């Protein structure tokens, strides 16, 4: 089992940041009651790198994204984002658990797109996209609206700005959710099974938008998906998880066509058969 995968071989000591890394997990432990979901997990993601997490359900992939988005609390270890600890703050040279004020300073580095879109049903499309930039980033209304319109154009929804989410198809809703996350200008985009809730014919429009973003921006992407072709298209690296640890990782060509581990082989076989 690979326990310390690093992209370029350099390792950093415990409790230190890695300035050239966008994300670094350092012996991260996450438990739900007695169930250990992540056991001393270590990995790093470079700036602008696109990493896809694959593995059976319950292997801890989604938990990794939720820890990064601060939706779940860490039990042990450290997570570093953009050179700073995420769940800890420096207090007199010691790292202590972060308070809400510190978390609010760190959160804008991340944007997340959810499996079920989670749009705000009481707001029209444009307001879904401009709400947080105005009230949480303090952007002027005019600027937020202009940016919102640009981003909605990018995801192909210029004509839907005045619709309510309930008036859109699933694929359109998910594209609004992508626009909403991007409007916050995050450094890291977290994609949590973003096509799993969609009808098959709507998957392509969402993946095309994401491909576009992956290929034209400098954003760092962590992606949990069962769309193996999409993973191949956008990822620099694929990490195979099982039982809260990394089984193996490597470039998508290697992982998908010539995996080392039996666990990866059987998982990929099962996923491909299900298609």
């Amino acid at each position, binding site marked *: 089992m690979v326990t310390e995968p690093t992209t370029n071989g350099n390792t950093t000591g415990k409790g230190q940041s890695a300035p050239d890394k966008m994300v670094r997990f350092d012996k991260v432990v996450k438990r739900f009651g007695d169930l250990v979901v992540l056991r001393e997990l270590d990995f790093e993601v470079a700036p602008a790198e696109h990493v896809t997490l694959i593995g059976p359900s319950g292997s801890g992939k989604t938990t990794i994204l939720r820890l990064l988005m601060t939706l779940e609390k860490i039990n042990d270890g450290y997570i570093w984002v953009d050179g700073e600890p995420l769940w800890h703050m420096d207090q007199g040279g010691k790292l202590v658990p972060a308070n809400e004020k510190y978390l*609010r300073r760190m959160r804008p580095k991340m944007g997340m797109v959810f499996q079920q879109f989670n749009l705000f049903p009481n*707001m029209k499309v444009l307001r879904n996209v401009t709400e947080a930039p105005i009230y949480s980033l303090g952007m002027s209304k005019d600027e937020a609206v202009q940016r919102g319109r640009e981003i909605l154009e990018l995801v192909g929804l210029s004509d839907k700005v005045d619709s309510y989410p309930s008036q859109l198809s699933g694929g359109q809703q998910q594209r609004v959710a992508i626009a*909403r996350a991007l409007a916050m200008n995050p450094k890291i985009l977290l994609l949590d099974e973003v096509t799993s809730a969609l009808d098959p014919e709507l998957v392509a429009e969402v993946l095309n938008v994401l491909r576009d973003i992956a290929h034209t921006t400098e954003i760092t992407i962590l992606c949990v998906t069962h769309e193996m072709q999409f993973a191949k298209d956008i990822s620099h690296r694929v990490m195979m998880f099982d039982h809260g640890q990394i089984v193996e990782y490597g470039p998508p060509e290697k992982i998908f066509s010539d995996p080392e581990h039996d666990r990866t082989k059987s998982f990929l076989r099962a996923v491909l058969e299900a298609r």
Partner: protein
Amino acid sequence: MSGFLSQFGEALPFFAQGVVITLELTILGAALSVVISFIFGLMALSQSVGVRFVSRVFVEFFRGTSLLVQMFWLFFALPLAGIQLVPVATGVIALGLNYGAYGSEVVRGGINAIPRAQWEATIALNMGRVQRMRRVILPQAVVGMIPPFGNWLIQLLKGTALVSLIGLADLTFETQAFRDATGNTVVAFTGALIIYFILAQIFAVLMSLLERRSKASIGQPMERRALGGLGWRLGGSEAA
């Protein structure tokens, strides 16, 4: 029948005076109890154990004791402590506290009914607590609160009849006055029942109009179905 109608006609001036006070108490009592409902309903969701406890005690006390006794307490006992309220204020405060205790449970339930995913989306967008509640959670939660609040408004309307016991000249009080003046018991109480019923129907229709509007505000299609109460259809503009 024509006898009843002419006697009913005699009673109308009494009823009209009473209805004004009944409506005044219903509207002011509802306004106060909505405010109390939101204050204590939100307190019930606080992260602080102390704040939740205060809310709990308030709700259990005002829900668990008689409205009539609360009203008597405010009207007869409080003056002995040197605080004298005018009767209308006594009625409004008693109704506000009592129905506010019930309403705070409606508020708490309405907010709890909003899916966790909505809260998570607001965290992912780095919203603060006030912004999250005001702009995302409450606008959605209020939609679900309207039907129970409609029920509660009609309860409150009927509850106002108790104020006649502290001498306020509401519909019930005027009904008694008419009966005392004319001895016509049947007309007095039949007329009062009809008028309470009509008032309740009006509130039911208003609440279901409000429900429609609030549903539209979260993008749920306007339902072209009959309004509340007996199922009134306004304007005859039923969709084909």
